[in-house]
């Protein structure tokens, strides 16, 4: 199961055996059923090889307005275990290679790659070809000049990392399904995909956190079993996590000493200064971590990796915590590292970042590789299309009678508390309406939910109004009394307490009000919550049944305004259908519903209007029938709203 966000937390809890978060953030279990659902609703979706080809070459992105839309880019047949050809940079070569991926002999490099556009021939000696056995020697400073060598050069060498037919399943869920990927020294390769596409699972296998069920991971052509992250580090694989695993109370040098027990603090302090000067990662070794900004902490993480002389550096959503300026500085460092022969595997859903940095990209969707391309040759729109895949026309929820605004949010601002700050969010949800808020993970969704639910109260009371009544400074209980109801994304530990019985969990959001006698039982009957026993513990319920219980618990109160985050994340198809029907039913009765979701299928299926959350800002809501998945994908990747108009 794909646990996308808290990497460091997950890896730490692995070793402690305390899986902090139940495996609920699953998209894969939804996929097979979701495909069936789409098939059932819209007829079979077939693959058009020409479209696949076109999308791979980027040629199909300017579609004549009257041309039929490609039905789907999703390959429906299971792909045979394929060794992907090394990513090709020359656009003239891209088409044949991509079109016949299986035909390519695994080891054959593309014949004499022609460096792209502004390439200048590099003397061979200029490229530090790493010795396959010994670690890369300490980087030689500056001699190489300001400009890094062209990245194509790496393809003359054998792949540093070669993944062939790797698969990983969690129960019935195939998180990574026969994925192949080659990575050459000095290459900056992007791993693109939506949440739950399998990127993190793949990377965890490379970093030794997880073991593949099938397939091989080879380093320098030697198949390896990477048992643990420490082994990965010994092999020269470094990883910069999205969430840093550092000790706040220790200094920079002390933090690094913790992971490098065989070096003295004085050596480490000296190395920090040296690496800082070489790479422009200046950081004072004696500062305390608690005093550092997110960007500076990331520098510490990168320095930690560099101290171990990595040959492959994996970065998981590195810019998600950075300001644009910090991101720019990071790219300079990565360019430089790649120039020294270090391979970079860059995981992101930020299309602009990938386009600016990477020379190759592998796009994953639902556990499989669906495309490889050169992001510099793509537009944000074509990348988004590859990531999201579906361009299927689908019927949308027909707008019921939509009346006056019930929930009004005006210029909602909330400072960051380790996450994303909200910067001036305004919207209104009207009577009878379901408003969708789309966006990739970590763009401010949980902050927006906390602000709306009152878990974090706001400075100005009139920022949030329910039927004209200001509630911005009220706590969750008082907001519930004002007619609001909430269902957060995480079930166990947020919307419900695993170690409490359903009756007590029912009370959790009803205790502010007159208790409904036997409420838990009523919810179970009305919403078909299946569980053993008269009053089971919440933890004993399956994800789908618990989610039905949570949504039912809120709906039973007949709220005026309902805020739901990821209502069908990781639940089975039947439960998802029940929940969607219940939400549409509630809207039809005159409630205003806000659905915060990363699942575009869901948004298109039930929402009347949709807005996109990106970096704590919300786009202007659009009528769902008037936007396309690509258009939303662009906004989700951070393109300016004007790009949306162009994409439609």
């Amino acid at each position, binding site marked *: 199961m794909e646990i996308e966000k808290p990497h460091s937390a997950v890896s730490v809890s692995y*070793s*402690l*055996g*305390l*899986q902090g978060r139940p495996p609920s953030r699953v998209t894969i279990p939804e996929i097979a059923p979701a495909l069936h659902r789409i098939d059932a609703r819209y007829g079979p979706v077939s693959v058009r090889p020409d479209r696949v080809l076109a999308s791979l070459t980027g040629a199909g992105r300017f579609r004549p307005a009257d041309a039929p839309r490609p039905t789907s880019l999703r390959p429906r047949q299971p792909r045979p275990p394929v060794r992907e050809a090394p990513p090709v940079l020359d656009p003239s070569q891209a088409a044949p290679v991509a079109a016949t991926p299986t035909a390519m002999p695994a080891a054959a490099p593309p014949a004499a790659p022609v460096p792209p556009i502004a390439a200048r021939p590099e003397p061979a000696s200029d490229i530090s070809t790493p010795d396959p056995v010994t670690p890369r020697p300490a980087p030689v400073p500056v001699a190489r000049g300001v400009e890094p060598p062209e990245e194509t050069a790496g393809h003359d060498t054998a792949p540093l990392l070669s993944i062939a037919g790797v698969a990983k399943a969690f129960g019935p869920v195939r998180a990574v399904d026969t994925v192949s990927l080659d990575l050459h020294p000095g290459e900056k390769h992007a791993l693109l995909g939506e949440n739950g596409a399998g990127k993190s699972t793949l990377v965890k296998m490379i970093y*030794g956190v997880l073991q593949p069920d099938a397939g091989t991971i080879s380093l320098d052509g030697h198949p*390896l*079993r*990477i*048992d*643990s992250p*420490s*082994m990965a580090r010994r092999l020269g694989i470094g990883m910069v996590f999205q969430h840093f695993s550092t000790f706040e109370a220790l200094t920079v040098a002390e933090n690094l000493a913790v992971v490098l027990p065989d070096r003295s603090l004085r050596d480490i302090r000296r190395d920090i200064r040296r690496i800082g000067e070489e790479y422009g990662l200046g950081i004072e070794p004696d500062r305390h971590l608690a005093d550092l900004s997110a960007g500076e902490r990331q520098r510490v993480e990168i320095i930690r990796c560099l101290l171990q002389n990595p040959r492959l550096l994996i970065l998981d959503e590195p810019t998600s915590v950075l300001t644009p300026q910090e991101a720019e500085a990071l790219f300079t460092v990565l360019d430089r590292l790649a120039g020294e022969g270090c391979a970079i595997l860059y995981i992101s859903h930020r299309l602009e970042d990938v386009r600016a940095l990477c020379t190759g990209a592998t796009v994953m969707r639902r556990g499989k590789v669906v495309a490889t391309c050169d992001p510099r040759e793509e537009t944000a729109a074509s990348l988004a299309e590859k990531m999201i895949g579906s361009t299927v026309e689908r019927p949308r929820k027909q707008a019921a009678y939509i009346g006056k605004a019930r929930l009004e949010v005006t210029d909602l601002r909330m400072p960051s508390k380790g996450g994303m700050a909200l910067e001036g969010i305004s919207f209104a949800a009207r009577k009878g309406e379901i408003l969708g808020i789309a966006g990739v993970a970590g763009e401010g969704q949980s902050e927006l939910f906390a602000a709306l*639910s*009152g*878990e974090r109260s706001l400075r100005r009371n009139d920022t949030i109004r329910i039927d004209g009544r200001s509630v911005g400074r009220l*706590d*969750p*209980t*008082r907001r*519930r009394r004002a007619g609001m109801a*909430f269902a*957060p994304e*995480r079930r*166990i*530990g*947020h*919307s*419900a*307490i*695993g*170690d*409490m019985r359903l009756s*007590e969990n029912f*009370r*959790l*959001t009803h*205790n*502010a009000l007159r208790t409904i006698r036997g409420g838990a039982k009523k919810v179970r009957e009305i919403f078909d919550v299946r569980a053993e026993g008269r009053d089971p513990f919440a933890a*004993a319920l399956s994800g789908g049944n618990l989610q039905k219980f949570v949504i039912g618990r809120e709906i039973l109160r007949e709220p005026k305004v309902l805020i739901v985050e990821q209502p069908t994340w990781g639940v089975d198809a039947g439960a998802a259908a029940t929940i969607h029907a219940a939400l549409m039913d509630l809207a039809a009765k005159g409630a205003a519903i806000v659905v915060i979701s990363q699942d575009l299928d869901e948004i298109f299926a039930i929402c009347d209007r949709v807005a996109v959350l990106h970096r704590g800002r919300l786009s202007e809501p659009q009528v769902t029938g008037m936007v396309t998945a690509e258009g939303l994908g662009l906004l989700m990747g951070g393109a300016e709203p004007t790009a949306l108009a162009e994409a439609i």
Partner: protein
Amino acid sequence: MLERRVAPSPLLSILSPVIAVALTILAGFALFAVLGKDPVKAMEVYFLSPFADAYNRSELLVKAIPLALIGSGLAICFRAGVFNIGAPGQYTLGAIFAGGVALHAPEGAAMIWLLPLCLAAGFVGGMLWGWIPAILRNLAGANVILVSLMLTYVAALLLDWLVRGPWADPQGRGFPKTATFPDGALMPNLVEGTRLHWGLVLAVIAALVLAWMLFRTRRGFGIRAMGLAPRAATFGGFSEAKTVTYVLLVSGGFAGLAGAVEATATIQQLQPDIAAGYGFAAIIVAFLGRLNPIGALIAALALAVTYIGGENAQILLKLPKNAAFVFQGMLLFFLLACDTLIHYRVRVRRRAGAA
């Protein structure tokens, strides 16, 4: 490494304290065998002599009273996930406040109100001492464990200074103690001829009230929710800061009450040693009682057995006094180990070898 079990056995969760007691007895056998004492005899002295006669039984209850009072308050606090280990300090402050009222009561005042006033003052004293870690935590993010523990030493030194300085008995010939409390401030005995006093009734009432609060009121629900899942509790509308403050006030208050009861019933004056160690033993009581105030009542008796048994063993077997503390420590150790193993299983992990 430890791996969480999917479904901990409910039966074992209840039996855990019993298993822990059994293991403690077994370990005790080994301990006495190593010390060269007859283990059977030692066990008899430890675990049976406290029940042997009326005097021992009454002493057992006398020891159990403060343990139960403090332990049931701590059960509430631990339920909320707030680890107040400063009960000895709160107990000491309770004794100081009660003693202050008793020693400074105007002569000839309505004596019937003096004892309730002392007890109430003790409760308030404990609450104030428990409030400090709550304030520091909520304002500055201070660690409750550390602050409450360190305040224990502050309280002990405060008491020491008072009984040697301002409150010292003028007729005490330099001994560090206060004058004996006036009669109106003394706790009456429950059974004539023993030291058993009305504190027993207080302890039982306290446990019942706290259990009712924890399991039957909205506030108790919030406390349990906060301990199990803080985020869910906040989502349910329970403020974390308010809950922390509340449970520290309650547990501090009952620890203070225990101090006041001990001061007015068994010690009857203030002196540097007022057996504040009860405050630490009550941590064991709270956990042994499954963080249930009524359970704490029973657990207090079990702990009292080790106290009385330890005293008897000291006299009859010439064992060091600390043997009783060793027993208490083993009991807590086995209890926590049982609880951990009920919720987690041990998995031996292969060392990562080279490929």
